[in-house]
């Protein structure tokens, strides 16, 4: 099993003494779909930021594709995010005034893909998430579920090694949230590696691997069939 990402004894302390992550170790392997679950304030977002190199740990190492990212320059980290990672956020973060295709194509801008190819790949990604009929729509013309699908298309358009989703259903009603979750499981079935953060135990229950966080520590890590991961 190929390691995509590994955290080793990661601690993150915020100024003022809050220890949002406390000695956390976690390995994600290729093709996994895992849920990171825990109550609000338990450190899930901090964990996702560190997994996504948007933030660096106070102590410990983070490896992505075998490389220790805590030693990389900001420039190399940016390139790595653009090439290997995809992000989905609770608030979608679509850019107002730009079409669905343009929003998705931005996911390829910083990876150095030529403009024309960006458009074509963005259209394909939107078709993949079931929005082939919404290509030219602006964010305010889309429903919440459609916005999140656009955001997911943007996250997958560069075929990342790992997709990180922070409460992707948090801003959606249950039915829409379910369909977004189905989209993610579908992408996983096609081979994507995905980590989903949620405070919702029901959603976590539908994922093959569940990592439970509490007070900045991993308190349990269960894979399908009840076998805890090492």
């Amino acid at each position, binding site marked *: 099993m190929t390691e995509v990402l590994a955290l080793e004894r990661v601690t993150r302390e915020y100024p003022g003494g809050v220890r949002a992550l406390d000695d956390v170790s976690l390995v994600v392997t290729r093709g996994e779909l895992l849920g990171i679950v825990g109550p609000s304030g338990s450190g899930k977002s901090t964990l996702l*930021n560190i997994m*996504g190199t*948007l*933030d660096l740990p106070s102590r410990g190492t983070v490896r992505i594709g075998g490389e220790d990212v805590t030693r990389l320059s*900001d*420039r190399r980290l*940016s*390139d*790595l*995010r*653009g*090439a290997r*990672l995809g*992000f989905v*956020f609770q*608030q979608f*973060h679509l*850019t*107002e*005034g*730009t079409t669905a295709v343009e929003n998705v194509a*931005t*996911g390829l*801008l*910083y*990876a*150095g893909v*030529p*403009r024309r190819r960006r458009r074509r790949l963005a259209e394909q990604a939107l078709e993949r998430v079931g929005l082939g009929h919404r290509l030219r729509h602006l964010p305010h013309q889309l429903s919440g579920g459609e916005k999140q699908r656009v955001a997911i298309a*943007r996250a997958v358009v560069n075929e990342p090694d790992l997709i990180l989703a922070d409460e992707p259903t948090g801003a959606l009603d249950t039915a829409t949230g379910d369909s977004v979750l189905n989209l993610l499981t579908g992408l996983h079935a096609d081979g994507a590696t995905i980590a989903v953060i949620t405070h919702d135990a029901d959603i976590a229950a539908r994922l093959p691997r569940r990592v439970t966080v509490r007070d900045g520590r991993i308190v349990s890590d269960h894979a399908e069939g009840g076998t805890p991961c090492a």
Partner: protein
Amino acid sequence: MRLTPVDVVLLGLHGLRTRKARAALSALGIAIGIATMVVVTGVPASSGRALDARLATLGTNLLRVHPVTVGDQPEPLPAESIGMVRRIGPVAEVSAVANLHTVARRSDRVDEHDASGLTVLAGRTDLLPAIGARLSSGRFLTEATARFPVAVLGWEAGSRLGVAAVRPGEPLPQITIGNRRFVVAGVLAPAPLAPDLDTSVVVGWEVAERALGFDGHPTVLYVRAAEANLEDVRAVLPATVNPRLPGMVDVSRPSDALAAKRATATTFGSLVLGLAGVAVLVGAVGVANTMVVSVLERRREIGLRRALGARRGHIRLQFLAESTALSVLGGVAGTALGSGAVVAYAMGHSWPVSIPSWVAAAGLGGATLVGVIAGVYPAVRAARLPPTEALASP
């Protein structure tokens, strides 16, 4: 990864596209500044071109010789001075007028004391080519008519005496000079090199001597000489004209007065140009302010771009491109606006249009520079924003 220039430009326009009204307003300051620059340089340049064209047709090689006024009466020039000046080598043309100190009226029923305020001159028949003046209608004095009571009116004199034009086929209008009737043979066009002629009535040399008590002493000589020798001619004129009292003779160059007008316009222009520069600077502060607000509002967008792989440099470049685009749009609009104003103004005055290309270039270049400088601080702030903080912004 490097962004292509096209991508950078598109990124720069992206923020403006989604906030058009604000972009237009903040570009307006720069537009006004640049437009003012174009106008304050374009208008004098156009009027200067018109003046140059006029000087070219009038010639700048005319000298005006006149006696220095001491007390009431100027010391008249000697009668033989015309012939003396003609003998100076580089002199091409000499002509003369003499003030007859009498009055011209519409008719003898007008009281002598509320006369028109016009000067009555005796004029040589070769006056017009010497001063570069033209007739607006009718004819000038000839060897034949100079002996008879025939007058030619200056431009302004014509309208004061109620003779706007002399029409062929109609009887010649009449006026009263002194106590004698004169017929009007022609009306002059304005004479820029001899503006005192505009308010004068010109009669022949001989008729003046015979009928108006003229003693033959000219008051003003007009001398045309080869341009290259003009200063030499100017130097010898006083002694030639009045060998006894050369100090009583003054020589001026009428085209200098016209050229001086142009210099005044330029001095005035550079003052306003400085003010326009200040307007551009104020516009730049407006752009910087808009950009700071834009960065604050778009923290989430910045965070998102960082998550999508944008380096700090990419963020910096995006906001620099945006402020530059803003200023360049302002500069282009201002240049267009200013040029339009110059064209309209010049056409209104029937001047040739002249907008110095360095002004347009400096305006656009300056706007670009201003945009880059105004964008530096906001762009650096945007790039410094940590991605997590940016994404967590409300």
